[in-house]
């Protein structure tokens, strides 16, 4: 049984970082917007300071994502298995912008042209073997005004390192030029962040206070951070985080042009006889509804964007919506993580508080800020030393030189847990022919829809990059005075919150799902929001770029309304 709703101008599927941002310019332009969100609305009372509830059980993901965790395998020759870790996306009005860490980055200008810059400096032989690496279809400069809008929407805290070309060593000297200073100064510096900053400076590096979408001061009626230590994977109990449910969504609702449907799980994007999107079928409870619209924006997470397109089959698109070129699910990327831990003997680091967005960052080993001629890889990653160690995680962080249980293990924790420093990196990843998403033929969610199957392997280029930057993490900890340093093996944990691709953007319809505006090459009134558009991962957190791209796509829809929907 299906019920139909009054037609909207735009239906947005998912109200998180991407959808939650895009609704603002759409509603302000006077378009009639309906947003379908699988979760509900949360209050600060829901955001318990509880590592088990948040980090381990992902309570905020219980409406939907926890029941549709993708399966994974390394190669197409293997059987898929359940994900080692669930990934921790969430559902709710505001989506994962509620429980993200809020390390709020712009990508580096180099990230937008990794392919051409690698060829220019090192030759075509330096491109990763087997990769489908392309430049982004837009340059940093085109996205800069949208980064600016996002930063001022949320009140991002940071220090500019490149103000219209003027370099300031108090900020990130490697960043692309920005039009103006951050709206708020960096979050509080701590003993540990300064300790690591000093060590980095002694190594000749350029450390800085990493930018945070957490308000260091009250901003536009919203509160400042209280540094309580349960920030990542939990919502903020004082509403200090850069969450779209605190900013863009209520602003859009104020225009009365946005209608939010909670508990709505999209199951199919439908098309008319001409192959144009004309609405969305969704489930609310057990009942199926239909929402007609003149334009559709898919704004789920990376896995869900691919899944929904592949589930939306029709005579015009027998292999899934916008998939007549066989590109949906291709060019999948997952951040490669690596790093190291070390014991600073006898020192109480007091990392058991604050947020991981109180941190010292180092970009000297990212992008092409160093000579790769003899290194055998392209790219790198940002490095970070953060606050917000939590107790269960701390108990897991012991060196391989001690047993993993018993009195000796316990004695080590008592002596050293307060003295453990960590330095971590997230490695820029290239797309490969054989890393991709599709639907798992053997695993379904509780509603009977197949879950996504991730086929993803750690490739040589990224393995080398990870080991290289990991070595720098170890150097950093040793310089800080660590007596024992142990690495964390590079991992390309396949199901995770830093996943990209599947609906890659690019000018060539044969090799990309979306165009430079993140609209489908095949379905002109279908847009895609989210990191599923990214051609490369970048070596840093994606969310601010997701928000900036979404805003730009929404602006494009407004500007080209007649052409797109006519």
């Amino acid at each position: 049984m299906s019920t139909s709703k009054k037609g909207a101008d735009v239906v947005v599927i998912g109200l998180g970082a991407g959808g939650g941002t895009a609704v603002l310019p759409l509603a302000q332009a006077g378009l009639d917007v309906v947003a379908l969100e699988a979760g509900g609305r949360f209050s600060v009372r829901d955001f318990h300071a509880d590592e088990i509830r948040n980090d381990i059980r992902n309570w905020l993901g219980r409406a939907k994502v926890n029941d549709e965790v993708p399966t994974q395998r390394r190669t197409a020759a293997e059987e898929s298995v359940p994900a080692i870790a669930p990934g921790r996306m969430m559902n709710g009005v505001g989506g994962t912008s509620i429980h993200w860490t809020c390390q709020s980055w712009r990508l580096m200008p180099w990230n937008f042209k990794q392919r051409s810059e690698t060829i220019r400096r090192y030759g075509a032989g330096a491109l990763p073997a087997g990769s489908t690496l392309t430049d982004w279809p837009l340059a940093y400069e085109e996205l800069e005004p949208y980064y600016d809008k996002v930063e001022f929407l949320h009140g991002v805290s940071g220090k500019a390192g490149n103000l219209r070309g003027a370099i300031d060593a108090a900020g990130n000297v490697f960043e692309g030029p920005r039009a103006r200073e951050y709206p708020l100064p960096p979050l509080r510096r701590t003993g540990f962040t300064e300790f690591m900053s000093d060590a980095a400076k002694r190594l000749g590096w350029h450390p800085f206070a990493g930018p945070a979408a957490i308000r260091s001061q009250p901003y536009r009626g919203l509160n400042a951070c209280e540094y309580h230590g349960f920030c990542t994977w939990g919502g903020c109990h004082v509403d200090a985080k850069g969450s779209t449910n605190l900013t863009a969504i209520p602003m859009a609702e104020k225009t009365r042009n946005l209608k939010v449907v909670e508990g709505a799980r999209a199951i199919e994007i439908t098309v008319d006889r001409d192959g144009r999107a004309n609405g969305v079928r969704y489930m609310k409870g057990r009942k199926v509804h239909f929402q007609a619209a003149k334009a559709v924006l898919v704004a789920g997470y990376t896995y869900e964007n691919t899944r929904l397109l592949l589930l939306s089959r029709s005579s015009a698109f027998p292999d899934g919506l916008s998939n007549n070129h066989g590109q949906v699910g291709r060019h999948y990327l997952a951040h490669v993580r690596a790093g190291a831990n070390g014991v600073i003997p006898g020192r109480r680091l007091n990392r058991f508080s604050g947020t991981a967005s109180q941190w010292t960052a180092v970009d000297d080993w990212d992008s092409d800020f160093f000579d790769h001629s003899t290194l055998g890889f392209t790219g790198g990653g940002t490095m970070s030393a953060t606050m917000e160690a939590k107790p269960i995680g701390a108990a897991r962080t012991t060196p391989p030189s001690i047993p993993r249980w018993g009195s000796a293990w316990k004695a080590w924790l008592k002596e050293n847990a307060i003295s453990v420093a960590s330095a971590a990196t997230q490695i820029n990843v290239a797309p490969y022919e054989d890393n991709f998403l599709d639907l798992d033929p053997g695993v379904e969610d509780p509603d009977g829809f197949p879950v996504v199957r991730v086929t993803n392997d750690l490739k040589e280029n990224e393995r080398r990059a990870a080991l290289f930057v990991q070595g720098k993490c170890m150097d950093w900890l040793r310089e800080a005075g660590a007596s024992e340093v142990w690495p964390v093996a590079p991992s390309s944990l396949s199901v995770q919150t830093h996943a990209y691709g599947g609906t890659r953007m690019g000018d060539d319809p044969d090799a990309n799902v979306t165009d430079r505006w993140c609209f489908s090459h095949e379905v002109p009134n279908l847009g895609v929001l989210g990191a599923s558009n990214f051609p490369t991962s970048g070596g840093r957190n994606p969310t601010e770029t997701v928000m900036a791209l979404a805003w730009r796509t929404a602006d494009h829809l407004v500007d080209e309304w007649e052409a797109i929907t006519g």
Partner: protein
Amino acid sequence: MQPYEGGGADSRALSRRDLLKRAGVVGVAAAAPTAAFAPTAAPVRDRERLEALTALEAEALEAIVDRLIPADSNGPGAAEARVARYIDRALAGELASLRASYSEGLAAVDAYARSRFGEPLADLEPAQQDAVVRDLEQNVATGFPGGSRTFFELVREHCLQGMFGDPVHGGNEDFVGWDLLGFPGVKLSFAAAEQQMDVTVVPAHKSTADFPLFKRGRKGGDGEH
């Protein structure tokens, strides 16, 4: 509620069952304490009604976690933290899907303990129990369809959660896990001085459940933990 048996580590030479008889209780979730911390430690309490495990399964589980995190001169261990209670409650709720894995695994542990030392795990001496747990970790204990290491890792992870997670979930009794690490407990705000190195942050000894902000409220409110 029973006080600790006195005595030091050598009281472990008694069989666990003898010890419980001497203590006059049945089903105490504990090993003997050591003299080093017993005088100041809270007494180990009776096991509450089990929610998921059988009594025999609980005995085996308590014996495992007691060896993973023993009470010793560095303070209370998994028994005092009520780690087994955390796991039992979780298996009756969020981790119900693992209930069968625990039943099979704990039965296999006891069967292996019998095959190697002639008694179920709970009745062995600490050194023997350690040998069994080590075999689980090394993946050489027999009788585990998925390999004994898989079961070891499952229990170890849940043991860490029960020892170091928020007490609202049934473990980390009296914040003994957090005190071991130097974790200060839940506070809704930290001052700049508390984020400096080498200062001693006074333990708050508070759970998330101690804050009215997070108390269960109106119908349809924040829900279970």
